[in-house]
């Protein structure tokens, strides 16, 4: 294993790979530090650029972009109380009060250091856990893969929206879109309506560019934010910031809280569908719970930045575990990465860690490298990232749409661009009516895996559905899926019942 790790670093440090990691990290931090743009949009926009790269470079670019974006989100969260990405939402609670106290440099330094620690912990966890999980997954058959796919989809659907039914519907739309084209088992056409374009199925790349990148532009326009002026006053005041790090004396009492955040972040990241935002919330909550001075939180304490930042960066590494070891993405960004793998002729999953071991360890090393790089990039170029917020949105919007239009065309098929615009309109409508887009993307990418696995499992068990569903691991995963799916519905019903009782009590009074 040590040899694999060293080989991974050797490949990651090769000049061309290193340049790709630097580029990915820079773009990631820039995207993260710009409110409204996040790692999913960045990954969707940058997939077409990876066409000309080797598979390892393509994945390195996207993985480093992901790491950079998770860090970058904290910059506007601390300086302007606007999280650049949802992962940084908890960082605003203590980061912004520190800025108001004139300690913006220290808040940024604390966030930067915490992101580095959390990120490296996440990569270490990924390096250790992914091969172990992959070894266990080598025993999985089609029925287990079917159940794993269902678990991935239900986990994201249950957490992806305020309305669980709409989120489930969104996941089902994705599964349905995945059935367009030739059937994966017998090769007969489905939902092609006599056209040749649909025979190849819904191409994932244009769909994902439309749903994430272009749809977001339409959303901003509909809200009128695309042409409203940005208040640069606050930004201008922050231009002279110098990053300072917390002292060892300040950090020493926080060692256990930091370790708890890192562990929780890693575990939450590994769970499909949960992601870095939830990790940040859990990290912050545990820090408040175990703190001797919980009253300090929310008023500008460095512990309030350390806990969520360590947790969300550790979760970014954790989120790569199910993708690389099982081939099941647990979030929108990792679903886009799965598409990049497939586009380059690679199939993530247990066999990747057996047959393409150098590639897997190069990705681990590249992510660690990205974490170290964003530390230096953040330290040296903070003023540049603050200034990025001053770019008027119309230019960002036009840039995104132009990139999306050309990127969707990049497979050499003009229908890709038309499909991209169709999915952009669909994504806009879905967002407007509170149907989360992420479950649909996951459904689109997991659809063929789930269907083919289920039908193969049925063939193996002579079409006895009961025998398929009651295999021990399959049954366990499916029960877990039901629990995951029902939990938010249960809580929603309980909340409604509670508020109903409240109303009754009020009216009675």
């Amino acid at each position, binding site marked *: 294993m040590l040899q694999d790790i060293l080989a991974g670093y050797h490949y990651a440090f090769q000049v061309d790979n290193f340049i790709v990691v630097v580029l990915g990290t820079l773009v990631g931090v820039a995207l993260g530090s710009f409110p409204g743009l996040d790692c999913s949009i960045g990954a969707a926009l940058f997939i*077409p650029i990876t066409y*000309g790269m080797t598979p390892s470079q393509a994945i390195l670019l996207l993985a480093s972009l992901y790491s950079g974006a998770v860090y970058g989100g904290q910059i506007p969260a601390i300086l302007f109380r606007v999280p650049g990405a949802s992962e940084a939402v908890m960082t605003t609670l203590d980061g912004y009060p520190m800025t108001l106290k004139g300690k913006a440099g220290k808040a940024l330094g604390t966030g930067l250091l915490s992101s580095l620690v959390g990120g490296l912990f996440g990569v270490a966890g990924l390096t250790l856990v992914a091969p172990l999980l992959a070894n266990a997954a080598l025993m999985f058959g089609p029925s287990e893969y079917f159940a794993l796919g269902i678990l991935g989809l239900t986990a994201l659907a249950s957490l992806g929206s305020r309305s669980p*039914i709409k989120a489930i519907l969104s996941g089902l739309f994705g*599964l*349905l879109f995945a059935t367009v084209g030739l059937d994966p088992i017998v090769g*007969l056409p489905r939902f092609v309506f006599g056209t040749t374009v649909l025979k190849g199925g819904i191409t994932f790349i244009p769909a994902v560019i439309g749903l994430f990148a272009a749809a977001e532009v339409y959303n901003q326009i509909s*809200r009128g934010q695309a042409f409203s002026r940005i208040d640069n006053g606050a930004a201008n005041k922050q231009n002279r910031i110098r990053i300072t790090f917390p002292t060892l004396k300040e950090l020493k009492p926080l060692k256990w809280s930091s370790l708890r955040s890192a562990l929780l972040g890693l575990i939450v990241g590994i769970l499909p569908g949960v992601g870095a935002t939830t990790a940040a919330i859990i990290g912050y909550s545990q820090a408040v719970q175990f703190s001797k001075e919980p009253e300090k939180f929310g008023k500008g304490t460095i512990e309030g930045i350390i806990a969520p930042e360590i947790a969300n960066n550790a979760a970014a590494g954790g989120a790569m575990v199910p993708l690389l070891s099982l081939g099941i993405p647990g979030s929108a960004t990792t679903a886009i990465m799965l598409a990049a793998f497939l586009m380059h002729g690679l199939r993530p999953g247990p066999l990747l860690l057996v047959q393409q071991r150098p590639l897997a360890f190069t990705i681990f090393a590249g992510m660690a490298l990205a974490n170290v790089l964003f530390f230096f990039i953040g330290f040296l170029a903070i003023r540049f990232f603050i200034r990025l917020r001053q770019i008027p949105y119309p230019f960002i919007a036009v840039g995104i749409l132009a990139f999306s239009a050309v990127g969707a065309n990049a497979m050499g098929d003009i229908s890709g661009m038309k499909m991209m615009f169709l999915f952009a309109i669909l994504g806009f409508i879905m967002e407007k009516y509170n149907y989360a887009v992420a479950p649909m993307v996951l459904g689109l990418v997991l659809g063929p895996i789930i269907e083919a696995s289920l039908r193969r499992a049925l063939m193996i068990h002579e079409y006895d559905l009961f025998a398929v569903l009651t295999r021990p691991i399959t049954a366990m995963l499916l029960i877990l899926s039901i629990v995951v799916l029902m939990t938010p519905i249960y809580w929603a019903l309980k909340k409604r019942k509670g508020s109903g009782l409240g109303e009754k009590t009020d009216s009675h009074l």
Partner: protein
Amino acid sequence: MSLKGDIVISGITFAVAGILFYVARTFPQLKFADRVGPAFWPKTILFTVIVLSGSLFLKNVIMGLRREKFGQEEVPVPEKEGAKRLIMAIVLSIIYGFSVTYGGFLLSIFLFQVLFLLILKVKRLLVLALFPLSLTVILYIIFIKVLYIPLPRGVGIFLTFSRLFY
């Protein structure tokens, strides 16, 4: 987000899922190779969509009737300006999608950007010329010169123009 819109969306989903379920019944079968056949999975998904969208539709209709009964009105969302510009943006995107085959990538993407900036209230002539031009050059270098992507060249005079560059 309006309740009326929610009713329309869930109603459309219900109807489309119903039609697609009917279409799925007509899929060809290869019973000797696969007993469940190509229609099994789409029909399973569509059945679930029909049940969920139907229940969502009913729930929204009941909520709407209750609001009517108790005289509650939906709060209007002040986004008229946004809606007008959004329609213009979507129409422009569709026009671009269809015209790029005839006008070629270079000219179409440049014009698309100029018009999109105008929709987003950018009025300075220099900016309107320079920003789209610079971005077009960047896209040209990345996708045509570096990645060798075969982007559309257009027809007639536009084809002649495109051939000057790629």
